[in-house]
């Protein structure tokens, strides 16, 4: 499991821990995990996964879940983005594909951003629909490149099951994205004259989908997004925020002062998304047996409930701090006999 310190990695590890069929869970992360693990082992590794090859060999890893693909360009520099998404994926796959590796299943958490967002787009993208325009932003380019690496890996290692999940816009109680930040403010950016249709995915459904494919070892590419689509204006209304229409030309340049002041979040990915939206066909994963808990509108609703609660009750204090020695004690000390951790 990569990205053990990130939101998704931590969540999925917690979900998988309850499965007795899984012997050992190794979490790789660049920083200490933010959530407690029941039995998973945490290994600190740099984002290039230089030590991964050794780990794969030593621990006889059979499944790799790659959750560490960045999809929020406001959090990292362009260089770090490339290192994490492209170089990280490359090294990971190189280790997984080494001749002495026992890896037989690779799960990759990608994003529907690989489809882009352009006026030429179909209303719904299927997994095999090509993009209608070349990628414009660094984020999209890095994801497209990372997926190409995964595709090559799948071709070179026909015995390994490769699953790629493309997740839509995620909202939920805990996840923070440029979209969630915008929707939490009193004024939320829109682009004048455009009211795009968007799909949303609840954070729990993300974890459940990753868990689902990890258990079942189903190969292929799958779109993951809540059913139905909502216009951006309706999303804003549900969230109780007012739309601030930005000029449709030179949008990002003119919005730069607002972005600088932290009044709006407008990464390059959102500029097109807030014009043309994006929809994906999610029947393939449902045919494989996956059931969603939330529709797109249900996701927005669940997000609003959580933010209302936070507004009234304040931020819950961080419940957990990773202490390396303590974790090692619980896992390996002979005096820990089970039962109470």
């Amino acid at each position: 499991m990569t990205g053990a310190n990130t939101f998704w990695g931590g969540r999925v590890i917690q979900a998988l821990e309850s499965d007795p069929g899984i012997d050992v869970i190794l979490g790789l992360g660049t920083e200490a995990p933010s959530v407690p693990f029941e039995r998973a082992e945490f290994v600190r590794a740099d984002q290039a996964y230089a030590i991964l090859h050794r780990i794969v060999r030593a621990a006889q890893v059979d499944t790799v879940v790659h959750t560490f693909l960045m999809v929020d360009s406001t959090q990292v520099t362009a260089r770090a983005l490339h290192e994490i998404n492209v170089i990280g994926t490359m090294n990971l796959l190189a280790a997984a594909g080494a001749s002495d590796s026992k890896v037989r299943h690779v799960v990759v958490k990608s994003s529907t951003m690989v489809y882009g967002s352009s006026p030429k787009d179909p209303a719904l993208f299927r997994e095999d629909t090509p993009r209608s325009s070349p990628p414009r932003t660094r984020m999209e380019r890095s994801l497209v490149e990372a997926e190409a690496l995964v595709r090559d890996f799948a071709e070179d290692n026909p015995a390994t099951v490769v699953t790629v999940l493309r997740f839509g816009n995620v909202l939920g109680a805990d996840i923070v994205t440029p979209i969630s930040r915008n929707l939490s403010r009193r004024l939320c950016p829109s682009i004048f004259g455009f009211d795009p249709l968007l799909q949303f995915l609840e954070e729990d459904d993300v974890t459940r989908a990753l868990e689902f494919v990890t258990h079942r070892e189903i190969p292929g590419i799958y779109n993951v997004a809540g059913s139905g689509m909502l216009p951006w204006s309706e999303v804003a209304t549900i969230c109780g925020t007012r739309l601030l229409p930005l000029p449709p030309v030179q949008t990002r340049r003119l919005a730069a002062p607002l972005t600088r002041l932290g009044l709006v979040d407008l990464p390059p990915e959102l500029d097109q998304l807030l014009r043309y939206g994006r929809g994906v066909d999610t029947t393939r994963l449902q045919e494989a047996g996956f059931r969603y808990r939330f529709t797109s509108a249900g996701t927005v609703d669940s997000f609003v409930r959580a933010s209302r609660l936070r507004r009234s009750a304040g931020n819950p204090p961080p419940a957990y701090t990773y202490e390396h020695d303590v974790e090692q004690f619980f896992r390996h000390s002979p005096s820990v006999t089970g039962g109470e951790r």
Partner: protein
Amino acid sequence: MAPRQVATEDRLSGEVVRLPLMPETEPLEDPRLGDVDTWGRSESFRALLRTLYDPIYSKWFRVEWEGLDKIPAEGGALLVANHAGAIPSDAPVIMHGIEKELGRPVYGMADYFFRTIPVVGTLWSRGGGVPANPLNAYRLLHDEHQLALVFPEGTKGPSKSFTDRYQLRRFGRGGFVEIAMRAGVPVVPIAVIGSEETMPVVLRLPALARALGIPYFPVTANMLLLGPLGLVVPFPAKFRLRVLDPVTFDVPANQERYTKSRVMEEAERIRMDLQENVYDMLQTRRSVWFG
């Protein structure tokens, strides 16, 4: 991962047997506020548009139909028509007309360029317009059994000069035939007269069009007579529409590709049929304004 597709299917069916499906749940809660569907259309907005447009349809253009019964009462069908007038009135006339007379909505498919215009693009989509994309057309016709309207001439139809009126342009690359074949639906041609006179193109300004990034910039008789108002006010020409016999293709649906010769042959036949009927209707027309 296309080459692995076959293995995917095999493994998939095997997996499903071994592991039970996730339990079926009740329909999920879907707390929507508006009525905009996944196509971007809003029924309440369309109802408003129909109320506003009906006087233009029946009083201004005084639309008359022939052969409306040839439009299938159910199932998907691809409607194709000749396209004319700088800002063409034929699309709303056909869409409103069929919905009014037969109660079936028509999804007008237009160039993606529409979507890039602020406000207009959004209203077009809320009103039932869909970007002309093969995947969209397939989903509308095959999966949802709807009526879709396309103008195979594209922008070449409305941008032609008034001196070329009622001379049908090339029908693109016959993409519409291929779409109908793939979706397994008939093509229903509709010949339209009156459209050319609603907004005659006197000349075009290609340099200005390029500068504005639009397909063509027409100078119309309406603009010369009415000034800026001429951009939105069409002349009250009498509209007559004739629905021709539906064309079906005896080819299997859902094919990736169809032979270009067959596609072009069918497209050309439909074009000739429309052209002949347009000429025929013009022969019996006594007056542009009264029909």
